[in-house]
């Protein structure tokens, strides 16, 4: 198995585990049972039944997930297992505010809306790298270290050629995390608006 296949399957497997950890109310179980459930889920996800493991079926649908998705999925697994929150709400909100506009910039154009193709920038553009550097420095200045860590991890994976793709975009963002960011932002906005409406006057 090539390294890129292994990394791709690992990413999809972790995403699958995060889905299991989210769907099953793990926090209600005793610690031992929690780890047993996740171990069983890991077997189900990574051990082949027939030709392929479940992670490979997920990979057929999603392709290789971005490092951002991988980090969020890994953090979700740890949070459900141990109760430790690795990425705080402030960092998450900032991450979503970066991801959502990036997705709105990337996908419509990449899918052929106009002659301009922002996805092509990900193969090697000084402008694109500089824009990413500015976002990362802004995050660093605001002490949003989770965001900084995600960018560093994605860039390292890109430089190492961890995935099949040689496009930096594919390490930073994917449709799954984009939809997740948009849904979380819209849901937060809805809650804020409804809170304002129901807030008593005076």
């Amino acid at each position, binding site marked *: 198995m090539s390294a890129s296949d292994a990394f791709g399957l690992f990413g999809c497997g972790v995403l699958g585990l995060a889905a299991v950890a989210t769907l099953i109310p793990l926090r209600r179980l005793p610690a031992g049972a929690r780890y047993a459930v996740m171990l069983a889920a890991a077997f189900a996800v990574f051990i082949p039944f027939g030709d392929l493991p479940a992670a*490979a*079926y997920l*990979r057929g649908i999603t392709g290789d997930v971005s490092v951002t998705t991988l980090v969020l999925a890994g953090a979700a697994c740890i949070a459900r297992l141990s109760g430790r929150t690795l990425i705080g709400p402030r960092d998450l909100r900032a991450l979503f505010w970066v991801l959502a506009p990036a997705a709105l910039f990337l*996908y419509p154009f990449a899918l052929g809306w106009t002659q301009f193709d922002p996805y092509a920038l990900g193969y090697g553009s*000084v402008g694109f790298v500089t824009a990413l550097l500015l976002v*990362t420095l802004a995050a660093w200045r605001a002490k949003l270290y989770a965001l900084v860590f995600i960018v560093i991890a994605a*860039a390292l994976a890109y430089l190492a050629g961890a995935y099949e*793709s040689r496009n930096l*975009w594919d390490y930073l963002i994917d449709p799954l995390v984009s939809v997740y960011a948009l849904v979380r932002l819209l849901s937060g906005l809805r809650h804020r608006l409804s809170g304002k409406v129901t807030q008593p006057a005076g």
Partner: protein
Amino acid sequence: MTRGGWLRWGSLAAVALVFAGLYVRTLALPSSGGFAPAQAARAASPAAPLYGAELLPNSTAASVHSAAAAEISGGGLRAFWYGGSREGAADVAIYTSVYSPKEETWSPERAVMTRELAQRQLRRSVRKLGNPVAGRDRAGRLCLFFVSVSVGGWAGSAINLMVSEDEGETWGPPRRLVASPFFNISTLVKGPPLQFADGATGLPVYHEFLGKFGELLRLDALGRVIQKTRLSWGQSSLQPVIVPRSEAEAVGFMRYAGDPPNRILMIRTSDGGAHWSAPVKTALPNPNAAIASALLADGRLLLAFNNAGENREDLSLAVSEDFGDTWRVVRRLEGDPGSPGAPVAEYSYPWIVQDRAGEIHVLYTWGRSRIKHVHFNTAWLEERR
């Protein structure tokens, strides 16, 4: 230093190092060279018109489609196509056969890729296989690109690449090309690959999800996508075929899927493929069907196309002496009234190869039940009838 201090200044140092790496990688990218110089001149064709035709073997598949071919050592031709119980079925495989010009026969077909094998080797689920495309990389190795789908219809396609070191007898495992940020779906191939002067391989591809448009991928020696250029955009152009004439100049043709009048689309570049003109409609009809084109050894362009606006019953050849500005229809390969035809009158998805001896080969889907091979010389092309 406190833990917070380490985090703050350590993360900044990590950012500096990583971005130094990104800048070095970006600045070290080779500048996009133009197209590779044209192939060595081929031998002149004999003056006497030559023409032959055969149906390729098909012992198992009820439905076959989308032939591609490449000349192999010894002057033979290796063809590829997909076949199965029906288009899009799980039993569709990519088949190959070898043509011997001396005996004018094709070897029995054999499958080079099945859905199950693709699934195992690509390490992801695969639901069906589609268009194969053949060519050579700069190292001279035979390359086979093919479409696979994991979810949905053809709009869910991705492209895979296999390489052979022994002219197609054996193949390395396929690798997935990543050409779209949206689940890497909706990228398909139909046109032959080409070469860039810097050693990269060019692959014309098209997208079918939401929009229908063409792109030219640039692949490195390992077959990874390292750059791409948009050939068109919108909802109506697909299956690009690119024909370079010099390092700077190339012309491209695309299938048209828009509102009438239904015409073949043409694009041009004069800077080695860095920029392309907007597609313009040619005078030649196009019933939303694939076309093939090649630059002949004498400098003329040859085009194989369905010469009708609404159906694929007429497959004709046209030549251009001014690199695509004007065309002359010179031969009708299929669709002559009274001539015996396929049970289903559909002649489509042509593929053109001119071999080193100057003979021209056209392969195409013949009634969806067979692949047909016609071969001729330029004297036959111009013969007065």
